[in-house]
């Protein structure tokens, strides 16, 4: 399978804290990868470095698109911001949606940011919300939505621009287990189901079990990779 995003020996320091110490990773289109590990082991940092939010201290992040490869870490601030807007989608633990906008407008926002007309963007947003089963909530304010519904709005927003990779940082962390399963179904359907790659940080083994691969991290390195369906771990990454 063709790799979509690839990390090569990533290192990242915050002051004296070494958050990543040599991470290698490759994710293909249509593949879902879960990242697990104790708090503070570098999961969020890995996600942010892959997405070009943080720059690695050393190493490369390659995004394969249009037949070529872009080194995300070599781009400037503006280019990385543009990349996040056009090629990536994000789902955070709390929705982190704009509270003054309606659900539909929140989903339309990434489309407006890339210059789409408002009516067009809102129509697309309604379509995405409907596909996630909350089509009737497009005009609702966030305060009127449950936690699970807000996460669906966030999932819809993350796929609005049809990104090639969706990053989710503990997207079900604030939800009960039943809602958590529903949200994960929605997330998988809208990413892997549409040929995108999904990288999801989670503490929930149930969530990880539904991904193609699970990476276990400790102290800034991947210590174990479990492939779904195969009984044994497929070896360490380094």
């Amino acid at each position, binding site marked *: 399978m063709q790799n979509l995003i690839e990390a090569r020996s990533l290192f990242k320091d915050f002051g004296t804290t070494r958050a990543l110490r040599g991470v290698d990773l490759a994710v293909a289109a249509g593949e879902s990868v879960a990242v697990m590990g104790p*708090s503070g082991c570098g999961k*969020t940092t890995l996600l*942010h470095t892959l*997405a070009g*939010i*943080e720059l690695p201290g050393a190493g490369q992040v390659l995004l394969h698109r249009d037949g070529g490869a872009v080194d995300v870490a070599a781009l400037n601030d*503006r280019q990385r*911001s*543009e*990349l*996040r*807007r*056009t090629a*990536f*989608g*994000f789902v*955070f*633990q*709390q929705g*982190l949606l*704009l*509270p*003054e*906008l309606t659900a539909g*407008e929140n989903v339309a*926002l*990434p489309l*407006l*940011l890339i210059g789409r*007309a*408002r009516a067009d963007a809102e129509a697309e947003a309604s379509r995405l919300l409907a596909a996630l089963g909350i089509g009737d909530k497009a005009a609702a*304010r*966030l*305060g*009127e939505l449950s936690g699970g519904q807000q996460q669906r709005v966030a999932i819809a*927003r993350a796929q609005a621009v049809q990104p090639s990779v969706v990053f989710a*940082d*503990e997207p079900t*962390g604030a939800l009960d287990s039943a809602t958590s399963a529903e949200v994960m179904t929605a997330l998988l359907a809208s990413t892997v189901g549409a040929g995108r790659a999904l990288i999801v940080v989670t503490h929930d083994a149930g969530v990880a079990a539904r991904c193609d691969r699970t990476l276990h991290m400790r102290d800034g390195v991947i210590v174990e990779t479990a492939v779904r369906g195969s009984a044994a771990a497929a070896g360490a990454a380094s």
Partner: protein
Amino acid sequence: MTVLTLARLFARRSGGDAATVLLPAVAFAVVTMCTTVVVGGVFAFFTLDGPNGTTYRFLALLALVLLVVPLVSLSGAAARLSARRRDTRLSSLRLLGASSALVSALTVLESTAVAFVGAAAGAAASLAALPLFGLLHFDGRPLGGAIWPPVWVFFAVVVTIVALSAISAAVGLRAVVLTPLGVRTRVVSPRARWIRALVVVLVLAAAVAATSSLDSFAQIGGLIAVIAVLLAAFAAVLGVLGVVGPLVLKGFGRRWLKRAERPAQLIAARGVLDDVKAAWRQVGSLAMVSFVAVFTGIGVAFTQTTGSNDPATRLLATDIRTGVVLTLVMSFAMVACAVGVNQAAAILDRRALYASLDRIGMPVDVMDAARRRAVMAPLLVVTIGSALAAALVLFPLTGYTLLLRPAGLAIIAACLACGIGLVRLGLAVTRPVLVRLVTAGVVDPT
């Protein structure tokens, strides 16, 4: 844990965002300086006698009253910023065993200390500013030494402003504790709206009737009665504006929302509509000021064109314009400070949201444009709207003076433009707070 250790922790924790201490301090300095200068002016005017002595006294008091509204809104803004700072710390300090009452008390103490430092600096600055204001000509000669109020005034102004800030900080904290975040679902029933409209009309009619029969009040109770009636009429108009203003902003907000195409336009329109009262609180004080400025500006220009030969009247007309310009500039300066303080609070309030918007690739320029627009659009509506209202009220005079004496109106227009520029500056000053927040990145709570 002793209060002292906690206070030291407080001091350390606030070191991170200097703007949140500096902005309120500057705001209080500006308020103190403006108040001292205006009070000095009132004292100076009370020493003026001659044919227009009474009028001067009345005008000085009017200027003082006009400045009270922006003054109160500015200290309220500074207090709200303190409340935000308290919120961000409350959780961490509570973990260390401090009760929320203690943290609140310390926050009030801290914001009062900031107010005191600012007010003291403002009082000191007014020592330098007063001689400059002494150069202004009123009644045909410079104010000179007359502008210096008695020494106790400086202390009284500082104490009053510090006390005001302590009270509004305490009230602000209570409000934050009492109102949960979330959607505002309160709806005004059509009937309540109808009654409101009736009250507005009645109050306005009463104000007009009272001011137009000032003569009879003067006969009954002299100058005091006239001043009382005018102040009451002024308060009535302010009250009416407080009801009508937000409704007008709501109307405009709906139109902005409908027409919004770019993200910043959409977010700004929704932001205004989300809390029209807050949008009004921020810029509403300029409605009255702008109205009075244009009203008197036209009046003065008209007096000059009609070529009244009475030198005292001509002098009075020029002096009124000087006073109007001063009031206008000071009001805008205070609103600009309040906007700066409010914006710093708003940015801190939404730090997690702004960080997440940066992550999804929203340029800082778009975030900045959205919050800028949410302030500037209502500001323009309010100032230009009330300026036009004043011009409309005086309609025949407006056209007349515009043709014969455009320079007089141009001065007022230039002052309005400068004032709007000042507020824009207040927004620009808080941009680095946003940029730093986004570029520094926020450590995840997880």
